[in-house]
């Protein structure tokens, strides 16, 4: 199923355009309040946009220009939220059977369908329970079965694992990976792993706008937005090309290697480098590195065998002995150095 959508929701300051190809899973990433959930609400028909239109295959979901509006139950867009929201007065089986039953299947047929979907998410043994008797992970598995049993043409997932205990997240991700395979879906998430494992395509939203989109691998390898770089674990300086370097908005000049075509002087560009490529010094280093920035340590956080040093603009990964030797702590004035050969520069 193919979705094409453009929409403007004025009172939430959201303006988006998104396409989902047949069988494709698109991950929507972005900070809180960037409009990700609004996007899903617009597709599902819960929020009515002020402008734009959307089609799912040949069906028009809405068209603000001529006032076309299809109610949520006529759209074929299943919505799975952070909370499972299983109907508390129905058994697990009847919850999953709700979709088929509501669209005309007999009680017996819809229960058979429900059982099949429960088996798909490894929850067949929960069929007779009440929702109040389920753990968070079990309830969310049942909610997935319920959404799928309604045979949605497009599945919308709004941070489906955000409310789960972290010990059950990996198993849930496996279930989602299995059921999303070959299915048209949009998944809103905070987690880069979800994007990597579940999605073919990534859309990054900031402040109600889509700032970046593309195949997951490309976005993570060559981010163009601050948020994209953040989830990919990379440093990103955005600005204009200037003499083989990027002059960032903050005034920082970052030298690097042009990846692919050389970016024309004065046009928008980003410089991207890994925190692991940044070295930290108490004295201004002498010698080869072209990029040396004075900075103040803001935060230290352990990351596996390394320690991530956060400054206002750039982060660096160093080993614990280095932290001890340099006596680093929040407030310490340091010099950060990056070899130009470690910095990739490309068009923004």
């Amino acid at each position, binding site marked *: 199923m193919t979705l094409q959508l453009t929409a403007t929701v004025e009172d939430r300051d959201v303006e988006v355009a998104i396409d989902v190809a047949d069988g494709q899973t698109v991950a929507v990433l972005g900070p809180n309040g960037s409009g990700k959930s609004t996007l899903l609400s617009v597709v*599902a*028909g*819960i929020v009515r946009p002020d402008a734009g239109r959307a089609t799912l295959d040949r069906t028009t979901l809405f068209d603000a220009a001529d006032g076309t509006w299809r*109610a*949520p*139950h006529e*759209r*074929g*867009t*299943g*919505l799975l*939220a952070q*909370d499972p*929201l299983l*109907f*508390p*007065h129905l058994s697990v089986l009847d919850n999953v059977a*709700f*979709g088929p039953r*509501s*669209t005309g299947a007999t009680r017996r047929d819809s229960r058979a369908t429900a059982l099949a979907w429960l088996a798909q998410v490894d929850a067949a043994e929960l069929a007779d329970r009440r929702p109040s008797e389920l753990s968070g992970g079990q309830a969310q598995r049942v909610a997935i079965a*319920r*959404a799928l049993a*309604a045979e*949605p043409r497009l599945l*919308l997932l709004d941070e489906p694992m955000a409310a789960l205990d972290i010990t059950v997240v990996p198993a849930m991700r496996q279930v989602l990976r299995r059921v999303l395979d070959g299915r048209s879906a949009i998944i809103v998430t905070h987690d880069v792993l979800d994007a990597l494992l579940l999605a073919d395509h990534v859309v990054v939203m900031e402040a109600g706008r889509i700032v970046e989109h593309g195949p997951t691998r490309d976005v993570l390898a060559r981010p163009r937005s601050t948020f994209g770089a953040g989830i990919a674990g990379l440093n990103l300086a955005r600005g204009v090309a200037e003499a083989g370097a990027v002059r960032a908005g903050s005034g920082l000049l970052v030298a690097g290697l042009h990846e692919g075509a050389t970016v024309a002087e004065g046009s928008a560009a980003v410089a991207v480098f890994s925190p692991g490529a940044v070295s930290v010094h108490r004295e201004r280093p002498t010698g080869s590195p072209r990029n040396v920035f004075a900075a103040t340590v803001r935060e230290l956080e352990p990351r596996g065998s390394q320690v991530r040093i956060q400054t206002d603009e750039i982060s660096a990964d160093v080993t614990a002995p280095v932290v001890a030797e340099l006596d680093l702590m929040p407030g310490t004035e340091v010099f950060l150095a990056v070899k130009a050969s470690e910095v990739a520069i490309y068009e923004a």
Partner: protein
Amino acid sequence: MSSARYSGVPRWVYVPAAAGALFIVLPLAAMASRVEWGSFWSLITSESSRHALLLSLRTSSMATLLCVVLGVPMALVLARTSFRGQTLLRSLVLLPLVLPPVVGGIALLYTFGRKGLLGETIDVLGLQIAFSTTAVVIAQTFVSLPFLVVSLEGTLRTAGQRYEVVASTLGARPTTVLRRVTLPLVLPGLAAGAVLSFARALGEFGATITFAGSLEGVTRTLPLEIYLQRESDPDAAVALSLVLVVVAVLVIGLVRGTRSDVT
């Protein structure tokens, strides 16, 4: 269970609180103390008493049914939609809660009475509403409808729309959502509202006597009967009052029972 917990209530507060409780309980006790237990049974089973009690139960049940049929849609519209003038409409709907029942009765008389707004229309249909049992039901419905609407609207707002949204994305039409999700979820609130409406209808006096009069077996409900007996046979009035107190206590128990199911 929580007797050991710090309450934070100043000690002197207990004095006016106890006085208030006494103020409510004492008159009931005083009335109960005047009951002629020896003749209690014969007093409450006299023909006029039985007529009044049965009429009260019949009309109050009908009124409660009408409250549910009209009140559930009203509560849904008030809780789930927004339109111009909704706040004003809500205030108007709640008016019978604070309106003196006599005034309600007069208003009904000028609506459904023979010379009222709808009087001629009703006449053409060959119906005669004022001073009939139908009038009793109308008067009771008029005063008790707001109880159901207020109670159910509150429950609907507390329940929120999240389950309804999920149901609609699963392909359920609005009517299906209402029947299979909304109503089952608010059932305790609906039951509490219906019980409150029933209690209000059972106690209704002013609007009934104004709009329906006091004909034995036709419009003379239990409160009217008590009021009349008070002059001629005070013992019967006290005995019948006690019956209404018992019914009221049962109603409160029922409401509390359904409420505690919610939490």
